[in-house]
């Protein structure tokens, strides 16, 4: 059962690292005469795929006509100076939505994956400690953890982020958001790890290891941690969409990534203008990307989720 979440995480890491490399245009590259250009239809001929270039008919109404007499190849490997091809349309500033979506994957998935790694580390450590040491440590970890689990996540994230200076440089934002996510996410991991450790610590192989004089650290990392790996993998796969959504919400509110950084959340906040979005619904493409990440997780983990059903839905 651990294979699915691990494969899913590996794919997400690949997308985060690789997506910007296959983007046809730069994230900030603007095409002046193609503001809110619609997605172009792709045709096939003997030379491969092509599209008809768009010409601006009415700048005020933002209407475009496809020039059926001309053909342009898809932007990958196209000659310099060729007319731009927008597979998912262009946004209000004439930037390619597909390219911004692919570049945004790095920021959105990258932050979520870093926060997930941190959450797993802190959650596993605290869970191991609470489960193995018992007593006061266990009570402290479970009390604080339960309090955090009851709080609606998004309120706390927004409150903590809003308490920091509103304008911060990119590096600081990433670190601050990752720390906030880790501080709020760890109880989900620690709760399960603690329960597994408590059960596992009674087993013969652990008792034997202690009797043979293994150190606490060795017992915890070599004998107790391996029992938690499957649980950790599933939790990791559930945390990533939660954090992707948290980033999207924060950036939508203007509290996430700075304006110039392409991420799925900042793209959504650009699309928040209702009048502009009704005119160019394709600018909501990042919403589809977020939806896809959550959907794939839900479908792949459906049988192994148990009470976690609510975890994803409450993250909204």
């Amino acid at each position, binding site marked *: 059962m651990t294979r699915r979440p691990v494969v899913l995480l590996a794919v997400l890491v690949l997308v985060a690292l690789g997506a910007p490399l296959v983007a046809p245009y730069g994230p900030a590259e603007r095409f002046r005469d193609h503001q809110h250009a619609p997605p172009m239809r792709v045709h096939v001929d003997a030379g491969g795929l092509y599209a008809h270039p768009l010409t601006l008919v009415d700048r005020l109404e933002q209407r475009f006509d496809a020039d059926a007499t001309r053909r342009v190849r898809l932007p990958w490997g196209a000659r310099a100076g060729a007319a731009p091809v927008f597979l998912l349309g262009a946004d209000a500033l004439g930037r390619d939505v597909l390219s911004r979506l692919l570049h945004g994957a790095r920021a959105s998935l990258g932050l979520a994956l870093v926060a997930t790694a941190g959450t797993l580390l802190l959650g596993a450590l605290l869970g191991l400690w609470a489960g193995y040491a018992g007593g006061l440590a266990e009570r402290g970890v479970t009390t604080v953890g339960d*309090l955090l689990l*009851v*709080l*609606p*996540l*998004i*309120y706390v994230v*927004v*409150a*903590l982020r*809003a*308490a*920091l*200076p*509103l304008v911060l440089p990119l590096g600081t934002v990433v670190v601050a958001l990752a720390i906030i996510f880790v501080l709020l996410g760890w109880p989900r991991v620690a709760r399960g790890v603690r329960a597994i450790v408590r059960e596992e610590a009674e087993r013969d192989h652990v008792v034997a290891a202690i009797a043979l004089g293994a150190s606490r650290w060795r017992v915890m990392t070599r004998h107790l941690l391996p029992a938690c790996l499957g649980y950790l993998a599933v939790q990791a796969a559930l945390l990533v969409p939660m954090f992707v*959504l948290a980033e*999207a*919400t924060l950036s*939508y*509110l203007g509290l996430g990534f700075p304006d110039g950084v392409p991420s799925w959340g900042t793209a*959504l906040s650009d*699309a*928040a203008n*209702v*009048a502009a*979005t*009704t005119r160019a*619904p394709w600018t*909501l493409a990042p*919403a589809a990307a*977020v*939806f896809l990440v*959550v*959907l794939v*997780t*839900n*479908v792949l983990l*459906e049988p192994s989720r148990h009470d976690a*059903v*609510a975890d*994803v*839905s*409450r*993250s*909204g």
Partner: protein
Amino acid sequence: MTLTRFVVRRAAGGLVFALVVASLTLLIARLAPGDATTGEAIAMTVEQRAALRADLGLDQPLLTQYGRWLVGLTRFDLGRSSLFKRPVADLVGERALNTALLAVVALVVASLVGIPLGRYTGASHAMLARAVGAASVAVLSLPPLLSALLLVLVAAHTGWLPAGGMTSGGLSGAAWLADLAWHLPVPVLALALPLAATLERVQSRAMAEAIGRPFVDASRARGLTRERTLRVHAWPASLAPVLGIYGVLVGAIFSGSFVVEVVTSWPGLGRLLFDALLARDVWLVAGCGAAGAASLAVATTMADVVHATLDPRLLERRG
């Protein structure tokens, strides 16, 4: 443990919880850089700004401020909002009511849609049941942020429904009520869709599990019809996990309503907290924290009490 003791214990816990959360929000808001006068500082002399800070009680040491706030709390005096120039208690009460309206209607809609659908999909292997189940997984993956954006877009595009706000203003009586009902569907649906899908999934799984139990076979063997067996024996037995999930759904509604309120401009508690945070309106932030935590505690307690009344085994397990 009796039900009364259970309720009293939960209420006391809820009170402590609300106090802790409110104090923490106050602390967070107070430690944030800048205060309510920062935004207007450029238009004021140093003396005017100092006077305004004194008026808002911001010139006192942190502990004095906290003490005064606690004393005020016993009289339901939560201070004055610098952003809205009104007493915080009035403002928070008003907005909390709007949020409650949104949340209750959404929960009712979600239950009326999700539970019957789950009852059906859990007991059937037909293509339609599978299609509903698959659609439910898809809707479950549509968090309130996305469903709200999508519904606002649809509403704006078709012009069938208003895309935001709660009332059009300038109306009263029956016209006001009709106008309110006209503004409800977009935010309610945005909030209710993921909840309905969650309920459908849980009910479906519980129903399928109940059908596998021996008493269902026994009932069929006694000659009861399939319909009657499902209604009288299987469904009631499947309700325990469904009722259990309501406690969790309360948290989902709180998170969800915040996002939905911001996207659809619904004047609720979530939007108020967001505005207050950005304006560094500390007393309003603390008031929202207190009201939010108190309603969260009340809602989860209510969910648990209903659950415990219907399934008394819970009391024994906890006692």
